[in-house]
């Protein structure tokens, strides 16, 4: 890594950590979602510095342009009347226990494992990714499609039930 990339890596890392903390700690849901968007963008920057440019761009495409917009959209449509929706301040619920457990497991796993040496970055990783998706990883790739389809059908079923 050159000096400039190291500096940028630190900048993106600090940005990611701060925005992630803000997203969790703020009580205002809207600011939380925007901070999540900032976190995901910083993460894309880190992916790019790690020579995974396709992953970086897809991160912005899917997460910032898709998921964050969807969350904002859902928040604005569901909270009509309440102009500044807030999260409940109770942080001892079951959800937080699960979150702490998963976080702890991830920290434990990353401390225990030794990271393998990074292979040389490919000049253009897209053809390799494409081949991997349509050959050895075909089954999980298609399975994800089926899961997403099930999610869409489930969402439709929920909406129809409410209308009936």
């Amino acid at each position, binding site marked *: 890594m050159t000096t400039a990339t190291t500096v940028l890596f630190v900048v993106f890392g600090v940005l990611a950590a701060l925005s992630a903390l803000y997203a969790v700690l703020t009580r205002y849901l809207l600011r939380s979602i925007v901070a999540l968007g900032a976190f995901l963008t910083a993460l894309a920057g880190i992916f790019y510095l790690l020579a995974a440019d396709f992953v970086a761009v897809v991160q912005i495409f899917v997460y910032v342009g898709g998921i964050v917009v969807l969350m*904002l959209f859902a928040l604005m449509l569901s909270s009509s009347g309440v102009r500044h929706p807030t999260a409940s301040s109770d942080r001892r619920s079951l959800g937080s226990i699960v979150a702490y457990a998963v976080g702890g497991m991830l920290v434990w796993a990353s401390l225990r494992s030794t990271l393998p040496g990074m292979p040389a970055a490919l000049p253009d990783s897209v053809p390799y990714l494409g081949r991997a998706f349509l050959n050895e990883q075909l089954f999980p790739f298609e399975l994800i499609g089926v899961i997403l389809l099930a999610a869409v059908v489930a969402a439709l079923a929920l909406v129809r039930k409410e209308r009936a």
Partner: protein
Amino acid sequence: MRDLLVFGWGLALGVVAFSLVGGLTAAFVLLERKVSARIQLRVGPLHTGPHGMLQTVADLIKLVVKEDVRPSRADPVAFRLGPLLTAVPAILSLAVIPFGGPLLMRGLNVGVVYFLAVPGMTVIGLLLAGWASYDNYSFLGGLRSSAQFISYEIPRTLAVVAVVMLAGSLNTVDVAAAQQPWPYILLLPLGFVVYMITTLAEVNRVPFDIPEAESELVAGYHTEYSGFRWALFFLAEYGALFAAAAFATLLFLGAGSGPFLPDIFWFVLKTLIVVFLFMWIRWTLPRFRADQLMRLAWKVFLPLSLVNLVLAALVMQAIGPR
């Protein structure tokens, strides 16, 4: 040391891009007023400078010195963030357009995906601006624009996928080079039509300007904005228009190829012709209703873009693998 030079060069290019988009916006606003005037049998701005050419400069000075008004119950952070998040992605998206000459930027192997992904962040800005204004017109405008953007993003992306299939690369420079004998408008005419119409919807222009339809929403998401922040929305709109036209030139019109003159001349000329086409459409066609807009996206353009994908596969079979 070399790193720092590269870093500084990047920063300088960013400043150049921002100024370029600023200047373009001023020029395009004037062009739009002149074009609309001609179409409506008027003369348009005439008195400020020769043929009214300094009118937008005067308007810009007025906007910058104007008082910054914020509704008293608006959320201060989101209200300020909205215009910024709208304008910055429009400028960032220019980074992968290979204009040619000194502006042939070739850094990213996935430039085509980058161009589709980064303007998507604009929607967050529009939603925030509409919500933060504490105003029903703004709020509805923000929601409509995001619904429209998400819907039209799908057929537009599929139209671009067909081009990528033929070019065999996601690098914008390779896509330009792959069109050397025939530009893709000849091989994929349907894809070009789908791309152009869905792009009109993406940059919120008539007949797809439902988010800011003045007859029902005053001015949509930027109803409550004034002064410099309002100017930022204009910067975003015309910046996105220019970028989308440049991308159309890159994908379908053979990029910078043309006889005698250098690449950059042909690229900019073709882009300006596409921009003029967009303005022409804006001042000739009436606006759709919100439900017609959605039906058009899902029931017409999505199937058409899938048909276009099949056609692209057939063309690939016909001309052989690249």
